[in-house]
């Protein structure tokens, strides 16, 4: 039998561009009870006062894009990606 999922996960967050400026930091380690990246974004958005709704962001987990309903695992590196307007 595998051990039960911990209730608290340790994740690393990195911030870029407008979210980095709003957060005032470019990365942080945090403990979270969120179980999906969507839930985590809601938590962070409220805490930092981000005004970007989740419909307008993409999310990367451990260096690649994932869906919003992706489960969080202990040790994940999460990046919320604001809309891109490169070039």
């Amino acid at each position: 039998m595998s051990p039960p999922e911990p209730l608290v996960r340790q994740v690393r967050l990195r911030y870029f561009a407008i979210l980095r400026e709003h957060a005032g930091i470019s990365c942080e380690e945090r403990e979270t009870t969120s179980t999906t990246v969507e839930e985590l974004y809601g938590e962070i958005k409220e805490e930092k006062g981000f005004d970007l709704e989740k419909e307008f962001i993409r999310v990367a987990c451990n260096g690649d894009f994932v869906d919003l309903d992706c489960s969080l695992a202990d040790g994940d590196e999460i990046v919320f990606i604001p809309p891109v307007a490169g070039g």
Partner: protein
Amino acid sequence: MLFDLSSTPIAVDFLRQGMMSQDCGGFVAFEGWVRDYNEGKAVLRLEYEAYAELAILEGRRIIHEALDQFPIKDVRSVHRVGLLDLKEVAVWVGVSAIHRGEAFDACRYVIDEIKSRVPIWKKEFFADGTTAWTRCQNCAGDIGNK
């Protein structure tokens, strides 16, 4: 080097010469230049910030998609990061092919996809002292500044 980021000026002529091939008949290049005006305000300079690891991963995916979808010979792209002055090349895409129509189609595909998918953000420094992370033109689901 199919897709890369550069913190120094993009050596456009060096890149195009590196693609020259005697079995290709046509070459199409796109360059995005830093423009002095956006959303009604004079721009003095730009800063590009990238989530570098994912930008390179996604950029290379786009290049491989183009190689899969179009009968072309070669395609390469470089995007600047950091501070840029007016007229600098912000992004370059080059495509070589036997026939020109396919080079045009592939080049346009690559720049459209880069602009909508690669995590690179643009901060504009305006003449009035304000700055702004350029508003997304893709939120409504289209692919933006075509």
